[in-house]
């Protein structure tokens, strides 16, 4: 079932922790893990632009912070715009000789609500203008910080406080918005999906995004045991199943060329992923079948796009 993993020796992953432990995330938080791993790849020569959301609240309760590197909080809707401003401001100072060129990386972090709903306009603007920045969407598939309200990244069938499952409804009635595809449509140099269950893959992609000249977008599925109603010790397992069922495939799009990050000869049934989560508990066999068919279709499309893409990019 699960793929076998090699044991990683010391020195392969840096022991530096730009995002320190001691923050207030819930136990089993997949998003805090995503940020920790991304921060290791980002290093110290960076500015983090952080939207309102779980990671901002748990990691920066005044006067404490988990960030060892420069960090700025933004509104909910404007993360990509603030990151654009920081990048443009630094560039202007370097150009005028007011600051030395130190190749400072600007990295925007926002949740799925802050990216796919309220922040989409600002994101589109930043990607279109071509700022040299990395935008990481930490997708836990609902507004978890305010109490598990649905977002446009909430998957079909999930019960949330504003898409409650019951007699009248099966929960979320719309399909998850395809944010990576929207990013790709902006014709930017680098788009990737990642999940902390595949930690080395995540770090590699962040490192690659930082090297790219121009905008890069990484969409990170981050398991939320509280909102998804799964066991806190299952965070890694649930994330891995999201990938291996094809619900959340891992891939890269470099200069428009699709490349699957993992070769899955056969997808696990979606049921194995759904059944671990209370938010899907109410789903009937028929609904699960609809989800399975959709996943098969979407995954096949992705495989086709990858097969059409040239390996060199």
């Amino acid at each position, binding site marked *: 079932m699960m793929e076998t993993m090699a044991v990683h020796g010391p020195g392969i992953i840096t022991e530096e922790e730009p995002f320190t432990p001691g923050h207030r995330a819930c136990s089993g938080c997949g998003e805090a893990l995503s940020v920790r791993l991304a921060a290791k790849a980002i290093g110290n020569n960076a500015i983090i632009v952080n939207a*309102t959301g779980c990671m901002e609240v748990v990691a920066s309760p005044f006067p404490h912070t988990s960030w060892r590197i420069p960090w700025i*909080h933004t*509104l*909910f*809707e404007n993360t990509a715009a603030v990151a654009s401003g920081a990048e443009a401001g630094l560039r202007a100072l370097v150009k005028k000789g007011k600051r030395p060129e130190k190749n400072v990386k600007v990295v925007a972090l926002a949740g799925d*609500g802050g990216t796919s*709903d*309220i922040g*989409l306009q600002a994101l589109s603007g930043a990607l279109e203008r071509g700022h040299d920045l990395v935008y990481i969407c930490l997708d836990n598939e609902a*507004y978890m910080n*305010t*109490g598990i*309200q*649905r977002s*446009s990244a909430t998957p079909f069938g999930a019960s949330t*406080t*504003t*898409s*409650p499952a*019951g007699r*009248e*409804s099966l929960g979320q009635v719309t399909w998850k918005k395809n944010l990576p595809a929207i990013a790709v449509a902006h014709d930017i140099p680098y788009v990737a999906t990642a999940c902390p269950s595949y930690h080395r893959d995540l770090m590699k992609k962040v490192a690659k995004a930082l090297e790219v000249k121009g905008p890069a977008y990484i969409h990170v599925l981050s398991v939320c045991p509280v909102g998804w109603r799964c066991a806190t010790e299952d965070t890694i397992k649930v994330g891995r199943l999201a990938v291996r069922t094809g619900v959340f495939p891992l891939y890269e799009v470099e200069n428009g060329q699709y490349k699957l990050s993992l070769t899955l000869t056969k997808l696990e049934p979606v049921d194995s992923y759904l059944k671990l989560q209370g938010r899907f508990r109410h789903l009937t066999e028929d609904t699960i079948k609809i989800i399975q068919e959709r996943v098969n279709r979407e995954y096949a499309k992705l495989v086709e796009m990858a097969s059409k893409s040239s390996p060199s990019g």
Partner: protein
Amino acid sequence: MPKKILMAGNIAIAEGAILAGCQAYFGYPITPQNELLEHMAKRMPEEGRVFVQTESELAAISMLYGAAAAGCRAMTSTSSPGFSLQQEGISYMAGAELPAVLVNVMRGGPGLGNIGGAQGDYFQATKGGGHGDYRLINLAPASAQEMMDLTMLAFELADKYRNPVVLLTDGFLGQAMEPVIIRQPVTELPDKPWAITGAAGRPKNVINSFEMEPANFQPRVSLLLQKFERIKQNEVRYQGIHLDDASLVIVAYGSASRSALTALKMARQKGLRVGLLRPITLFPFPYQILADLAQKVSDFLVAELSSGQFIEDVKLAVGLDKRVELASQYGGVPLAPETILETIERMSKVTIGR
């Protein structure tokens, strides 16, 4: 016996809206008003009405603009930062004379602030908030019961004056649970012949707030101003407690008035003649009531959950020759009755000559 149910203030607002015939609700998650949004997500479909979780507060206010223009009783709810984001749309609604209900469950600010209750949006809500010459009717509930009752009144006044109405409350009142008597539902809604509903068989209606020629726009704004004057004449609401023999009057609204009422009772036990004036409408503000009180009372104490906003209207009403002191908390911190009592005692010991 009417039904009495224990409910949080946020839920009372939602149920009040349903009783008032609200057909469409548009909202976006923000603490401390989420219970309202979540309750509407469950209840509106049950009632066969429309619930939409929008992609932002900007979308919520814009959908409200559309629904109101279509002649629908509609509402949005948010908390301080979301209310700021909605200001442009609110100005357009006021300019286009669209009736709708806006709920602001205020929290600590400025900026992201925090999720504690506060009254720091007083200026923004009562003086207009967005651009241009306009006012919003502001209703300030002080209990879960009033959350329901004033929400129902808000819909009535919005339609009566074709103006947006703000229910200005805060996180403390939104979260606190109190018994609420469930009111009778409104069954007859007013006709809206001005609404845009398609022009088959009648002349077209136009909803806008635009006039290129300034000389033509001014008369339109004048009509708005005349409307605000009518509102000032007809809609002032307040509650007075122990005003007859008071030598010191506390002026407070919303949750601050709850602390003030406790402080009043404590002061009365100590033999201090303290009264309370609680504006229920913040626009129109009860200027005349306060001015009349100032004929016989010289000492006023303003209690507010902001750092001296509401006090400006009190000073304007009572005049500069009166003593007006402030007992306040801000940034999401609750105001303890003891803090108000201390100020009362200090003011009572020291009398200033006149």
